[in-house]
């Protein structure tokens, strides 16, 4: 991956600086998207799980994560080396491709951040905050970093050796977070009242705002993965828009037919499902392919989100139904829709490439999903045995906002949905006379 240019290209560097900031914005966007979907009593905790991921993943990434993911391969395409631990040997003059290496490393960091944050949706309302603070850096190192190396690292076995394609992170981001979310929600168990109590999204405008920010940031995610300001970036950009649109329409179509009403949550979820699916494929399919990929994800994911009720796993905010399923759809469909004009070589089944590419995609999906699920399950069990993974029953009933963070998001009436009746508590830090 290091074909050294003497100097960074200014145009490419300018675009990648902007793209990196766009991707970082996706994590606060995700926080709002998730935050609006939980009940009022744990919305702040939901936001916090994403925000602390920014800080935690950044620290481990700069310490060893970047080097292990993108440093020179040290074991058959499975993991990188420690040559750039602590970002050593990298300065303003270091160049990766046509952009400064420090920028490339930061761009990749923003992917690791949102992937860790995505998992929080599977365990909403009930995870012990201290355990989450340990889980995130451990997970980033043991799951994200190796998978990122397999896919994008120099000599990584999935892209460089097997020849499977993943342009912007269907495998390390979407499938890894989805499979990990499934594992973690199985370890922690369902929310109190799962399938009994109404657990309605408390703020749908917040969900829509979050979805909008995600979509905006996704242009940096996908078009930025071209690692330059060029035609491939433009094609990925347009594919990203197209798939988000057909995902939105597909989900709403199913809702209208099945439930009788097109919903705002459905529109937001459908757009995200389409964006998830086009993530791996945006750099390898034509515009027609992108429209199909988005539509397929919108339709299939709108059904996949209800599997949890039948199979009894409380993936609270549908990380499995949207990210795992959407990620698999997008990664798999590369095997059908890959076009030479985009990939520079590989072709899908529908463009005369036979089933070879489809097979490679399938192998990559199974490997990443199995690895992420297994390792995350292990981390979860270990944390559960040591620190304890799950918040106490009373904390969960009252809500994590008040019991963990000593805050409440809203000043609401006693009939608010799931609102803790706690405003008569006297603050201990500074006594405030509310009668004044």
């Amino acid at each position, binding site marked *: 991956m290091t074909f050294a240019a003497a100097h960074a290209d200014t145009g490419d560097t300018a675009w990648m600086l902007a793209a990196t900031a766009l991707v970082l914005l996706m994590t606060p966007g995700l926080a709002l998207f998730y935050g609006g979907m939980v009940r009022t009593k744990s919305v702040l905790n939901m936001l916090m799980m994403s925000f602390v991921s920014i800080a935690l993943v950044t620290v481990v990434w700069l310490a060893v994560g970047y080097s292990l993911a993108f440093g020179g391969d040290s074991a058959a395409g499975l993991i990188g080396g420690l040559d750039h631990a602590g970002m050593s040997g990298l300065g303003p003059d270091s160049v990766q491709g046509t952009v400064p290496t420090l920028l490339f490393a930061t761009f990749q960091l923003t992917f690791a951040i949102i992937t860790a944050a995505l998992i929080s949706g599977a365990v909403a309302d009930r995870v012990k905050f201290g355990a989450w603070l340990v889980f995130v850096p451990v997970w980033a190192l043991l799951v994200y970093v190796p998978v990122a190396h397999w896919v994008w690292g120099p000599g990584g076995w999935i892209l460089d050796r097997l020849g499977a394609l993943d342009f912007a992170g269907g495998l390390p981001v979407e499938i890894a977070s989805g499979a990990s979310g499934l594992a973690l929600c199985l370890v922690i168990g369902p929310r109190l009242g799962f399938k009994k109590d109404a657990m309605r999204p408390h703020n749908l405008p917040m969900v829509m705002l979050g979805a909008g920010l995600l979509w905006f940031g996704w242009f940096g995610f996908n078009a930025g993965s071209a690692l330059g300001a060029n035609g491939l970036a433009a094609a990925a950009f347009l594919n990203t828009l197209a798939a988000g649109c057909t995902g939105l329409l597909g989900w709403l179509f199913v809702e209208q037919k099945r439930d009788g*009403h097109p*919903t705002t949550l459905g529109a937001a979820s459908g757009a995200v499902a389409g964006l998830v699916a086009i993530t791996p494929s945006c750099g390898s399919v034509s515009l027609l392919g992108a429209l199909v990929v988005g539509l397929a994800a919108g339709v299939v994911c709108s059904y996949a989100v209800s599997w949890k009720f039948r199979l009894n796993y409380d993936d609270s905010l549908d990380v499995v139904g949207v990210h795992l399923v959407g990620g698999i759809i997008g990664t798999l469909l590369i095997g059908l829709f890959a076009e030479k004009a985009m990939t520079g070589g590989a072709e899908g089944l529908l463009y005369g490439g036979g089933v070879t590419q489809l097979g490679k995609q399938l192998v990559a999906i199974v490997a990443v999903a199995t690895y992420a699920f297994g390792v995350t399950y292990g981390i979860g069990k270990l944390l559960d045995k040591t620190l304890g993974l799950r918040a106490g029953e009373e904390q969960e009933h009252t809500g994590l906002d008040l019991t963990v963070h000593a805050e409440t998001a809203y000043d609401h009436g006693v009939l608010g949905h799931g609102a803790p009746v706690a405003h008569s508590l006297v603050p201990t830090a500074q006594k405030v006379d509310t009668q004044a």
Partner: protein
Amino acid sequence: MKLITAIVKPYRLDEVKTALQELGVHGLTVTEASGYGRQRGHTEVYRGAEYRVDLVPKVRIEVVVEDAAAEDVIDAIVKAAQTGKIGDGKVWAVPVETVVRVRTGERGPDAL
């Protein structure tokens, strides 16, 4: 004296208020309430999961009047709140032993 309590649909509140003002009722108290009767609740669907919402938003109107005026007040509330559809609400009256106006200490009907 009688305490008349009416549980009605929130959007009928203005009509009820106007009707009571026309009858010369000088004051009333309104609270937001939740409940269900024969209307039961409604269904909401989020990502395909159906939730039954049993408690429907209502307003509770309370007014204390002299015995002689009670029937007229009840009729006025019913007329103003009625839409003919299920979920219109209920009105009831109970005897009130005493009423005191806090500002002056007046008691009984004078305090109304």
